[in-house]
């Protein structure tokens, strides 16, 4: 097409030269700017209903302008007028407060008109950030952090790799946008954002670390002299954690080379390697593939060093010593570079001390040589790498992770919160049941459960929310979720005509008898209206809040239903979480600590309700919220009929506070009786 494209092909180093060639492009820019200005003004003049007749001209000229950096600055010059003119009217980009940074990269990578709208939307955001445009409900700080996050999430567009072929024009535009944004924002704030994002996810210690690793890989591009050493050091730390956190691994050319280096290493060197790995893993929750190689090596020759490589606590060491053969076999069978993350699970499993349960050991051993159903093999085939790990090895690694990190189980992008929560609950309080289910599912591709005395076989059922396309799940979830989903669905079906929410019965049968039999839902199943909300709130306080429930402590997690809302408090859908514990934090405020299977536990639910994952004594994988904020999102919970205080002791002011939060958010979608 023209010289501009060829310029864009080059890397960042040569891109700086484009300013030198400015003359050739400026001659084209000024008539283009005039046309853009005119088109924008025509759009501005049009009545709202007729805007779409004139938007295209603006997009087309914006498209043209965005093909050069100079053009980007023209777009910025007019960006404060976009909203007033109606550039985004009647489209997905209309309200900037509803936009979310994670979606930006995807839109920019689309061909055609959406990528242009997205680009213009970033320019509007920049105008807000720079203060040239005052938006009534979006602050300049918010706009800045939005853009920093966008940059952090799309560093590959900011630092493109050398391209063999010409890039498509929408990608060139995206690169120009990021180059321009980077000029306007600071690299440092992007790095800071990146560190925050990585920290935010790692602190929750998920089993599946794919997303974190992607972020870290991207962040490598950002490490240069321009950014503050503090952030650079943080990023480097994460980068080392997934690659080479120890002196020998740093020197090693590849995995084979590392293993050869271990052969030659002294005992002291091995101990130091072990400790460095353990430290890095403990600090970040991330595991290096070399860590797996070291562990396999130690497992053969220096088993006594293994505790140092795992960062075991006292009870972990005891557990290790009592089960030394089992651990040996687990490592031999299941710890490979492909399953490296299971090392963290193994540490946690040992530290939990669960191997004291005598029935557990034969159940685990049974998995070592379990014949695996062909369909299950197929489902796990993604995990097979080059190092010859067996399907049973993958299964065992998966089980180790789940038992070690019950709150690290995530639903990925799949609508399976119910099943993920179930696996998490069993991994905490009914490992035996979990292993039984895994065994039959892996061997027979079937799960049996009883509901009110009647047997249900998952392989005889057809309906379920999910049957295929489960992505980014751990091996145990891959095996169990399709079965659990169908069974849960079937149980719910059998309660359809009871005139009460079926969860009341299903949860106890499905999760376990330890679920309290009391159950309440805010929605009347007959009228579908929110009914007796104050009672709902008071009862929860009287059964769960330490100031009102006569001091009864929760023994088991409580699976509750919540309304998930977005940052504006608008209802997104129903969601399953479990309350892990309820305690007062360091400031004396009563908080609800809960497990959220959606891997994004710090979501902003609007109305200032933002779950935290750290800073209030949260354990790994836990989120927490002040008591009343959590209650305002709940629609159903179980309670113990025999362990409660008096509901009339709960102050009306509390109920009112909660009710207002509920009514102004998800409550807008319901009628209130």
């Amino acid at each position, binding site marked *: *097409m*023209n010289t501009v494209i060829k310029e864009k092909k080059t890397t960042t180093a040569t891109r700086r030269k484009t300013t030198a060639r400015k003359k050739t492009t400026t001659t084209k820019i000024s008539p283009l700017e005039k*046309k853009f200005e005119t088109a924008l003004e025509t759009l501005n003049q*049009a*009545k*709202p*209903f*007729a805007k*779409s*007749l004139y938007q*295209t*001209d603006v*997009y*087309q*000229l914006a*498209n043209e302008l965005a093909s050069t950096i100079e053009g980007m600055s023209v777009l910025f010059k007019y960006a404060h007028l976009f909203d007033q003119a109606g550039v985004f009217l*009647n489209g997905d980009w209309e309200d900037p407060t509803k936009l979310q940074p994670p979606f930006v990269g995807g839109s920019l990578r*689309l*061909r*055609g*008109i*959406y990528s*242009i709208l997205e680009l213009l939307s970033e320019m509007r955001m920049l105008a807000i950030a720079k203060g040239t445009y005052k938006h009534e409900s979006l602050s300049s700080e918010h706009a800045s952090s939005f853009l920093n996050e966008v940059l952090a999430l799309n560093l590959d567009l900011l630092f493109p790799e050398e391209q063999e072929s010409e890039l*498509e*024009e*929408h990608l060139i535009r995206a690169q120009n946008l990021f180059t321009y944004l980077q000029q306007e924002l600071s690299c440092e704030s992007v790095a800071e954002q990146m560190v925050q994002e990585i920290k935010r996810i790692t602190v929750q210690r998920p089993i599946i670390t794919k997303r974190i690793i992607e972020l870290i890989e991207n962040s490598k591009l950002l490490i240069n002299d321009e950014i503050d050493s503090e952030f650079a050091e943080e990023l480097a730390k994460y980068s080392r954690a997934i690659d080479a956190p120890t002196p020998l691994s740093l020197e090693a050319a590849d995995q084979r080379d590392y293993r050869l280096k271990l052969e030659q290493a002294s005992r002291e060197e091995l101990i130091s390697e072990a400790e460095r790995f353990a430290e890095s893993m403990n600090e970040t929750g991330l595991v290096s593939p070399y860590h797996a190689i070291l562990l396999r090596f130690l497992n053969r020759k220096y088993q006594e060093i293994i505790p140092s490589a795992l960062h075991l606590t006292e009870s972990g060491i005891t557990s290790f010593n009592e089960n030394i053969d089992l651990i040996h076999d687990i490592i031999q069978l299941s710890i490979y570079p492909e399953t490296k993350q299971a090392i963290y699970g193994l540490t946690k499993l040992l530290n939990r001390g669960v191997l004291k349960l005598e029935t557990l050991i034969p159940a685990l051993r049974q998995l070592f040589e379990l014949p695996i159903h062909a369909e299950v093999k197929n489902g796990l085939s993604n995990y097979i790498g080059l190092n010859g790990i067996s399907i049973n090895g993958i299964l065992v690694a998966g089980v180790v992770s789940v038992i070690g990190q019950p709150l690290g189980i995530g639903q990925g992008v799949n609508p399976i919160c119910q099943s993920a929560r179930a696996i998490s609950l069993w991994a905490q309080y009914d490992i035996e049941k979990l292993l039984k289910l895994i065994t039959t599912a892996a061997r027979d591709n079937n799960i049996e459960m009883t509901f009110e005395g009647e047997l249900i076989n998952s392989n005889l059922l057809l309906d379920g929310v999910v049957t295929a396309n489960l992505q980014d799940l751990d091996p145990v979830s891959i095996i169990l979720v399709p079965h659990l989903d169908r069974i849960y669905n079937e149980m719910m079906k059998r309660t359809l005509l009871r005139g009460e929410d079926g969860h009341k019965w299903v949860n106890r049968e499905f999760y376990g008898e330890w679920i309290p039999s009391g159950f309440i839902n805010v929605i009347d199943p007959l009228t579908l209206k929110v009914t007796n909300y104050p009672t709902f709130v008071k009862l929860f306080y009287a059964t769960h809040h330490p100031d009102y429930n006569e001091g009864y402590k929760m023994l088991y997690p409580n699976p509750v239903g919540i309304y998930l809302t977005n940052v504006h408090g608008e209802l997104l859908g129903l969601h399953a979480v479990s309350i892990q514990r309820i305690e007062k934090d360091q400031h004396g405020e009563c908080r609800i600590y809960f497990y959220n299977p959606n891997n994004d536990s710090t979501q902003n639910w609007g109305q200032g309700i933002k779950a935290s994952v750290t800073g209030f004594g949260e354990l790994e994988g836990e989120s927490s919220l002040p008591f009343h904020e959590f209650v305002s999102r709940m629609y159903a919970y179980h309670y113990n009929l025999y362990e409660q205080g008096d509901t009339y002791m709960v102050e009306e002011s509390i109920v009112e506070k909660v009710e207002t939060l509920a009514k102004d958010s998800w409550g807008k979608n319901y009628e209130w009786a």
Partner: protein
Amino acid sequence: MEMKQIHGKTTALLGWSLQAIEAIDKMNRPYVVVGPPEFKPFADKNGIQFVPWQFDVPIEHSMELYEKLKELDTKVAVPIYEETVEWAGMLNSLLWENPRVFNKSLLLRDKSLMKRRAHLAGLRVGVFEEAFNKEDVAHFLKRMNEALLNMDEENYEPIHVKPFDKAGTVGHRMIKKSEDIEEIDDSEFPLLMESHLEGQEFSCEAFVHNGKVHFLNITEYVKLGHSNFVPASPTLEQWRPQIRETIEQLVKAFEVENGILHPEFFITPNGTIYFGEVAARIPGGHIFEHIERVYGFSPYQGQILCCDPETTDEELKTFFPEEVVSAKGHSGNLMVYPKVKSISKLNIPDELKEHPYFLKHNMFLPATSKVSERVGFGNHYGSIYFFGEDSTEMRKLLEQYEKHDFYL
């Protein structure tokens, strides 16, 4: 433009067109839009008075629509699309208690009737017949060529077939050999068959009120369905008196009182004019945009004024400018269709964008690369607009870029 409020009664636009809505909105007169129900939320949101209606139901349902429009104090219905012409005819018949209005509108909806009527009125038309099956088509092709003393089946002169009631070129086929006939699906019948007409093709946009032509635009076609410009070149405009005469003949023949006529003609180098077909709706091919660009008035408003029997001659006189001489230049456009099956990039030459006649284009890389099939000339992928003083340069540009591959 601001117009003083002279009419208190409601004008109904039949069919959803933002351009038409925008035009009537600026006229400051009460209006209602009758259109497919899916536009209701948008209309409500923007305060546009709206009656949801599906025009693909039998015309017998029109009483129901009439009642609704009556309630809104409607005085006239203005058709926007081909499919709404007979609806406007029926509604105006009911509103004005004149059944003939509807019957006349039907003439414009059946190409075979239309052709006969024109023929009867003494307009020059090609040879035509109705076909009800493939045999009819084969027979017509053969007989036409026999009449031309052309016995060479390999090199038959072509004939054209088209459905009776579709807009513009939808369903149009050129037939030269029996394979072409085989490609016609039985469901397409009945069809109108016509002899091929030589000569330059052009269209007219005649704004008629009380049977009188108040403004006549001539649109020169550079390539049918691809490119045209307004006003026509001096070479074509030299025949304006003859063309105007033909149009007046047409208005008389079809007993057109109020509205617009959009006929298509062929003209031979010595000025013989052949009638192609005629529609009573807004023309396609961006013609209204051209008229607005060169003459500075909104043809949509012109149509509304002409459709309304209560409009005065005085109003029309002030509204319409003088033909041709008042034009600021020539406005033309090229409609672009991908010539590839799958689009990987746009290829817009710099010399096009830098040409002083180049106004704008609206081509984007489509989100899906697969190119959809073409129906009539309706779904072009993009348009390029030109504006300039010299019609020769305009024609040259349109011809030149028609050959260019914009989509690769």
